[in-house]
Each structure stands twice: as C-alpha cells, then as structure tokens.
C-alpha cells in the first residue's frame, strides 16, 4: 500500500462503502477479492433482462490505476462472453467510456452499469469480436442471438445457480 495516495484510498473506501449500502441491480457483487489490495476489484455482471444475455452472470476484473479517478480503471471480462465489442479470448472491452470518454465523475459502480448497457447496444463498427459483429452487420439477428445464447449457456455462470 505504500506510495499510494491517501486521497485515492479514501475515495475507494467510500465507493466500496456505498456499494455495500446500495445495491446496483446490474451486479451480483462488487468488491476487492483481497482486502489488502484496494486497487483490484472483482464484480459479477448480470446479463441485461429481455436480451439474449439474460440469466447469465460474468465475472469482471477491475484494476484501478494510481491516478484514478483522472484515469479510467482497466476492466476485463474473466468469463468468456460473446459480444461484438469484447475480445472473446482476452476479455478486453472496447468502450469509449473506458478510454477517451472517461470522466472523473464516474464511479466503479456506474461504469459497471455502462458495461451492462453495452451488452444490449453493441457497436459492430468497431469490433473486437469480428464474427459476432459480422453477423450483426449482415442483419442476421437470429444467428447473432443464438450465438450469444450458446455462449451464455456454455460459459457464463447462471443466475439461478447463485
């Protein structure tokens, strides 16, 4: 913990405190897996209701940089997910909010909500998963949704099991 700015730790503790008080409907949990490292969080993201992602839960890895909140956290999917803007192998997310459009006013919790929104509003023109994006671009919604459902069934944790 040495060398980490006290103000940042304070903000993180405050965010953590807030997530404990107020449940984010998009998440099953949100907390650092290890109490000694406040700069590494994990979250369980729920699939958006009424979408092919419904019922799935994905584990997400969150690394918080030292200059947070001026710089965005690094967020990756741990659980495999099929989405045009998420790399299927690395779990890397392509979302302007996590790069150029980041604002210091966002919190970890609000960022996770934004990622849940991304699930239902993919941007196939800047794909990280070319196959999924191609299906969407060709207008094969049925094919796309089936593919997504397959990955949910095959890889994601199920909300009913929790």
């Amino acid at each position, binding site marked *: 913990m040495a*060398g980490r700015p*006290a103000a940042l730790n304070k903000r993180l503790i*405050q965010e953590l405190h807030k997530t404990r*008080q107020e449940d984010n409907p998009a998440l099953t949990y949100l907390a650092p897996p290890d109490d000694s490292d406040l700069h590494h969080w994990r979250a369980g993201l729920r699939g958006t209701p009424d979408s092919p992602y419904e019922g799935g839960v994905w584990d997400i890895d969150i690394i918080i940089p030292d200059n947070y*909140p001026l710089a965005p956290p690094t967020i990756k999917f741990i659980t495999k997910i099929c989405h045009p803007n998420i790399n299927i192998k690395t779990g890397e997310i392509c979302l302007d909010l996590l790069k*150029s459009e980041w*604002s210091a006013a966002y919190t970890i919790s609000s960022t996770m909500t934004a990622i849940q929104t991304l699930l239902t509003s993919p941007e196939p023109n800047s794909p990280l998963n070319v196959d999924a994006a191609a299906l969407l671009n060709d207008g094969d919604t049925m094919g796309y949704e089936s593919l997504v459902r397959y990955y949910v069934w095959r890889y994601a944790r199920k909300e009913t099991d929790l």
Partner: protein
Amino acid sequence: MDADFPDPTDWIQTPVPGLQALETSLRCQVCKELFTAPKVTSCGHTFCSLCIRRCLSASSKCPTCMKPDEEPRLRDNIVVSELVSSFNTIRKSLLDTLVAKEEARKQAEEEAERDSRTRPKAEKRSSYDLDDDEVMEDAEPVHRPQAKKRRRQDTTTLRKPQETEPPRRSTRTSSQRTNSRAGSSQVIAIPDSDDDDDDFQPIEESSESEFQSSSRAKRKSASRAPDTPTKDSDLFACPLCNRRKDQSTINPHVNRCIEGNRSPSPTPGPANGASSAGTPLRRQPATFSNLSRSQHRAPYTVEEREKLRLPKGNASLAKEADIRKKLRDHGIRCDVKGKETKQILWTRLQEWTNLWNANLDSDNPKLKHVLIKELEAYERSQATQKHSVVQDKDFEREAWSNTHKPGFDALIANARNTVSRKKENGTETSETSDSAAGAKAELNGMDSPEVVEV
C-alpha cells in the same frame, strides 16, 4: 465505518432518507468528499478547486457533462461553500439524533412484538394494537401505552435482552444517547486506515479531510470515555505520553501526540476533546488552533489571490530550461543533470500550479513548504504507474495532423480516384487494389496518436 468515512448512504437508515440526496449534492463528483473551496465551471457544475483543476489539466472537459472548459473560467461558488460548512457543522449531531430516534422506534416495535407474543390471550386486540403503536411511535415517541408495556415486559420472562443490552428506551436525552449508540450499535471504526495509507508523510495527515476525520475519531472517543470503561487488556499505551487508549483511538491519538505537542507530557488532547465534545459547533476552530499554526495561514484576500495566481502556460511553447527555472524559483526539486524529460518536468509544474492555485482558494491555506511536500508525495504516488493510454491534453493535435497531412491527402485523393474510376469503368480492378495497398502502407507508416504520446 461511518465514523471515519461519512457517506451519503448513512442517511438511508434514518427516518429521513431524503437527506442522502442533499448530502450527495454537497459532495464533489470527483473526490466524493464534501466540497473544499468549491468552484463552478462555465457549464454550471461545481467541484473542489483542486479536483477540477486536475481534471482540466488532464482533459479540458467538465467531468460531468464533458463540455469543454478552461481553468481561467472557473468561479468561486460562495453559496455552496457556505452550505457545505454549515452542513458539516450539524452533520454529526443530526445523524446521531436521527439514528437514535430510529433505534428507539425499532426497539419499540420489537417490544410491541414481544409483548404480543407473551400475551396470546389478547391476540385479537394486539395485532390492531401493534399497528397503532407503530404509527404513534413515529409521530410522537413518548406516550402512555408504550410505557405501560415496558413495565409489564420487565416483569415478564424476558430478562435476557434486558441484561445484555443497555436500556435503550431511556436514551432520550442527548448525552445518554451517545452512550447508548456507542455501546449498542457497535460503530465500527477503522481509524488506522488513514495512518496506514498515509504516504509516510506526517505532513499529509494534516491535510484538511484527514485531519477532520482524526479529530472526529478523537471527539468520539472523548465523548465515550467517561461512561463506557474499556477493559484494561484492550488498551494500548501511547508511546509518547503513556496514556492508555483503546485500539480504535490509539492511532489518531499518537498522531496528535507527535504533531500537536511534541513534549512527552500528557497531551492537551483529552481535555480539549472533552471540552469540545458537548459543543459540536465549536469543533473546527478548536481543532485548528491546536496543531496547524505551523502549517496554515490566514485565508488569502481576493487581491492577493489575483496577484499570486500562477498561469497555466502552454506545453508546446514552454522551453525545458524555462520550466526548470520556474520550478527552481518555486523551490521545487528538479535534477541538475537533465535526466528528467521535459514531459516529467512539465507534469510537475502543472501539478504544482494546480496545488498552488487551489490552495489560494482554500479557507485555511497551507504554507508553501507543506505544499511542496504534498507535491512530492503526489508524484511519488504516481511514479509507479505507466503513462496512461488516454490521450493527454498535451498531445498536439495540430502538429500531428500537420506532419501527416500529405499522407491524409494522398489517401483522400486515392479514394476519390477509386470512386471516379469505378464510375468510368468497373474493369480497372487491378489499379484500384494497387492504390488501396499503397494507401494502407502509408497508414501503417504513421504512428498512432497513442504511440506518439507514450
């Protein structure tokens, strides 16, 4: 937890959860603390002076609405500043009062429930009774039927809860309320986190928020001390004054010993705390008089501020030698051998400008040497991390697009050619693919902005 990290969600548990929204709007969106020296942007959003300055030097956009903004356009938000200070003064007592009220209500509810269980004969009436009680308890805490019930309950079989818990219904007066709260609701304090995280800079602890939280912890302990004796085994001796303190108060206490009063005699801490314990209104003046005389000065006047305000400057116009000179003039460390790049020096100067200008806005400005220590601590805390991938303000869009203009022009020309050729005859496919390949090669030759940045 709420002792050291006051948070808007504290109000959820009170009878007036709407206060959460009030407190949220009194907090800075960036640091999530109550505003310090609030500044309003040209788009009307308010932030702490230092927070918004840092944000604007990173991206020149309002963090809330992303509208472009600049530092010189920031204005003081005087009303918010007053709101925050008055809210801060009443916050603790308001929260305590409301929490105690809510606890009393819950207690009454429980008792009513127990009561209804212990007299099954009157079941038909009791359910009606219970509802009635609940409503009335909300409106008017002290009333007859409740008191009667309590007496009855004391004599019935339910001894256990009475033995283990202090009689909460008697916490009507404010002095008793504090005791009951401390004893029964087990406010978990994590007072040492500040000290642990605190970049080995004793000076940093004196930064305002830090200081307040430790003084809050102190106040708490002082108000608790006389009535709730802690077991002797739980006490730790302060290495400086040998006073025995319990685990939750030892750290703030040691800090105070080190900073406030350097003599090893018993600190004025407890006495001071006790005197201020009953009068939360006097909290701030009392605490600042104690330790900060060597680190704080009187607030700057408007004229002084204007005179002392540092200009932001422009990264591309500034020469490395000038930056070095400026830093040295301010008494900030910078290497002599020229090892540090212009980028590092510029970032340091920017952060210094931010700290300095924000300090001018502060209600209790720190002295220069304190600021310099803060700058160093901040830099050390940022040193471990790689340069962020996010495009910096310093990235020179103009220059970059100028250098690569020929490339772009060639691409555009190529594209136009392709289109017109396609229109003329669709047969010249080999030609177009060639030019496309050429364009691609050119594109690859250009460095992306990110790469240039890093």
